[in-house]
C-alpha cells in the first residue's frame, strides 16, 4: 500500500474527483473518505448506511481532524527530504512528533471506553466492533507510530463470543445452509427423477452419501468463484516447503525437477 507515500504527494487526482471540494484540498490528502461525510453528498448515503449509530460520534471526529491536517502538507516535504538524504554518513531522523493521530471521543487511554457504548443500560457490542474496525481501517491507511506514553491496550477478546457469533457467524451460516438446502433439494429431486430412488433410500446408498459429502464440503469451502483457485494454490503451498527440503535427496540428473521446486511462492 502506498498510502504513506500518498501523504507526501500532491493530491492532484482527488481534487479532480471532487471539484466542488477544492477548498478542502488539504483534507483530501487523507485517502479515507469518511471525513467528507459532513460535506460530501455522494458518499453520505453509503457511509450513513454502514454506521448509523455512530454518525453522531463521527461528526465529532470530522470536526476534530481538520485542524492538525493543515500542518501536514508543510511539514511533510521537509520530512521526506531529510529522510531520503542518505548521501552523507549520518542522516538525522525527523525530530518532530506525530501530528496525525487516531482520535475519537470513545477511545480513551488506549482502549474503548465501554460505558460510552451503552444502549438501554447494556453495552452495544455491535457498535464496539464497528468502532474497532474503523480504528483499524484508519490505521491501515495512516500508519501511526507506537508510543510508550499512549499504549494501545484494547483486546478484542473482551467482546463476548456471542456478539461475534450473532454478527458474523450466524448470517454466514444462514447463507451457507440455504445454499446447501437448495442444492440438496434439487439434487434429491434430480436423482429421484432419474433413478426412482426416493430420499430415504438415497440416504442408504453409499454413492449418494458420497455425493452428499462432496456437496456439503463444496458449499463450505467454495463460497466465491476465486475460492477454487485459492484452494488449489493452498494445497500446492502446503507441500512446497517439504518438496524444497527433499530436493537434496532426489537424483542429480533431474535438473527439470530441481528447477520446478524453485518456483517462488507468490
Amino acid at each position: 500500500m502506498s498510502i504513506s507515500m500518498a501523504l507526501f504527494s500532491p493530491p492532484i487526482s482527488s481534487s479532480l474527483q471532487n471539484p466542488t471540494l477544492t477548498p478542502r484540498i488539504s483534507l483530501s490528502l487523507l485517502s479515507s473518505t469518511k471525513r467528507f461525510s459532513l460535506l460530501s453528498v455522494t458518499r453520505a448515503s453509503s457511509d450513513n448506511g454502514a454506521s448509523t449509530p455512530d454518525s453522531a460520534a463521527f461528526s465529532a471526529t470530522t470536526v476534530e481532524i481538520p485542524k492538525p491536517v493543515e500542518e501536514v502538507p508543510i511539514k511533510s516535504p521537509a520530512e521526506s527530504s531529510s529522510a531520503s538524504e542518505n548521501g552523507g554518513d549520518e542522516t538525522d531522523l525527523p525530530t518532530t512528533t506525530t501530528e496525525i493521530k487516531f482520535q475519537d471521543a470513545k477511545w480513551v487511554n488506549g482502549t474503548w471506553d465501554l460505558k460510552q457504548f451503552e444502549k438501554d443500560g447494556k453495552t452495544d457490542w455491535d457498535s464496539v466492533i464497528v468502532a474497532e474496525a474503523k480504528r483499524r481501517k484508519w490505521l491501515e491507511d495512516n500508519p501511526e507510530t507506537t508510543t510508550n506514553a499512549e499504549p494501545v491496550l484494547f483486546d478484542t477478546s473482551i467482546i463476548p463470543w456471542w456478539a461475534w457469533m450473532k454478527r458474523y457467524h450466524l448470517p454466514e451460516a444462514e447463507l451457507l445452509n440455504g445454499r446447501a438446502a437448495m442444492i440438496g433439494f434439487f439434487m434429491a429431486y434430480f436423482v429421484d427423477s432419474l433413478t426412482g430412488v426416493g430420499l430415504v433410500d438415497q440416504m442408504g446408498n453409499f454413492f449418494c452419501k458420497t455425493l452428499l459429502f462432496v456437496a456439503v464440503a463444496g458449499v463450505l469451502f467454495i463460497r466465491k468463484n476465486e475460492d477454487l483457485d485459492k484452494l488449489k494454490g493452498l494445497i500446492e503451498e502446503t507441500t512446497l516447503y517439504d518438496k524444497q527440503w527433499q530436493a537434496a535427496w532426489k537424483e542429480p540428473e533431474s535438473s527439470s525437477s530441481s528447477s520446478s521446486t524453485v518456483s517462488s511462492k507468490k
Partner: protein
Amino acid sequence: MATFALKSFTGLRQSSPDQINFVSHVPSSLSRSQRRTSLKVTASRASPKLANRSLRVAVIGGGPAGGAAAETLAQGGIETILIERKMDNCKPCGGAIPLCMVGEFNLPLDIIDRRVTKMKMISPSNIAVDIGRTLKEHEYIGMVRREVLDQYLRERAEKSGATVINGLFLKMDLPEEWDSPYVLHYTEYDGKTGATGQKKTMEVDAVIGADGANSRVAKSIGAGDYDYAIAFQERIRIPDDKMTYYEDLAEMYVGDDVSPDFYGWVFPKCDHVAVGTGTVTHKGDIKKFQLATRNRAKDKILGGKIIRVEAHPIPEHPRPRRLSKRVALVGDAAGYVTKCSGEGIYFAAKSGRMCAEAIVEGSQNGKKMIDESDLRKYLEKWDKTYLPTYRVLDVLQKVFYRSNPAREAFVEMCGDEYVQKMTFDSYLYKRVAPGSPLEDLKLAVNTIGSVFRANALRREIEKLNV
C-alpha cells in the same frame, strides 16, 4: 585392504579377484556405480587410506558456519584451510543468538553485547504485547556483533590448528577422476601485494562451502537457486534516554505497511539500535517498508542519527542440492535460515560443526579419503534433527504472516503465557518440548477465536470501504 573394500560396493561390475592395485583398475566403473549408489548410504570403509598425509579440507567463508566447521575439522586431526575474504566484515545481521549456542559452542560471555529478556510484538493496529514474562533469571536472547563473534570463532579454529587465509574464492575445478583433488582458485590478500592480491591455486580433497547467501561454491557445484528475502537495516544511534527503553528489549512490528510477508524490527546493539525490515515478494518496495518501520517506531527513535545502511539477501529454503561428491554446503550457503523468525546464526554454526563431524568420522580422523556417502550422513543427521523445527516455523509463517487479520491474531496469541513459554523453550534450547495436552487444547481454541475475530473485523473494514 582392497578385497574387503570391494565387497561393500554393491552393483559393482568388477569380477577380477586380483585387486592389489585397486585404485588404478577401478576409477571408471566406480564413478558410474557411485552415481547409481550415491543415494544409498554405503560404508565409507571402501575409501582408500591416504598415504602419509591427512585429509585436506578447505572451508570457504569465515562466518559462524565456516569458523565452527574449521574448528571441528582441525580438532579432528584434519588439515584445514579457512578462506575468508574480509576479516573485519561487519555483517548486516540481527545478531540474535539463542541461549543454547552459548553453551554448545562455549562462547565467552563478553561476546554478548546485550541480553534481551523482553520483546514487544506490535500488531498492525498498534496493539502491543509484552513477551518474556515467562523467562527465568538465567535465560535471555544474546545480541552479538557479528564481527566480534566471527572473529572469535575463526581465532579458535586457528588455535586448534586450522590455517586461516585472507582471500577471495574465485572458482573451483571439479576433479576428473574420483580421487583427484579439487583445485581451488582464489585471490590471496596478504597486505604486501596491495589491494588486488595475488592469484593462487590450492589442491584439497574436500570443500565445505560456508560462503553465505551468494555462495560461489554453490555455483561451482550447480547447487541450484533458492528464493530469498531482502533484509534491509539501518543502524540508528538514538539519544541515551531513548536507549534506556531498549536496554534489554527488542521490538517486532507486523503489518502490511511494514512488510507483506515478514516483520520489521528494532533490535538493540552495543550502543545503537538496528531498525530494519525484509520481504520476499515485494523486494522493490523495501525502502517504502523501511520508512514505514521507522514511522511506526518514530516516537521511540526520535532524534536519532542513521549511522549505517545495509542490506543482504536471506535464503528462504535450502538449495535443491546441498552437496555434490566431496563438496558440502553449510549455513546460509545451504539455505538453513528458518522461516517466520529468520534465524540463521545458530543453524549456520551447528551445520558447519555437523558437517565437519561427519567428515572427521568418515575419514577416521583424517586418515582416509571420504566420499559422498560420508557427507550424506551429515545431511541425514541435519534433516532428522531440525526438519521438524523448520516445518513448524514454516507453518507459522504461512498461517500468521498472510494478512493483517492473521497478524492481529498472532499478536493476540503471543500475549498468552503458555504460548510464550513454548515459544521461548523452542527458541532458546532448540527443542520442541511436549506441552500439556489441556493447555494445547485451550491454545487451539484461543487461536481459532483470535483468527475468527480478526477476520470478522477485516470483513467489517471491507464493509466500511464500500
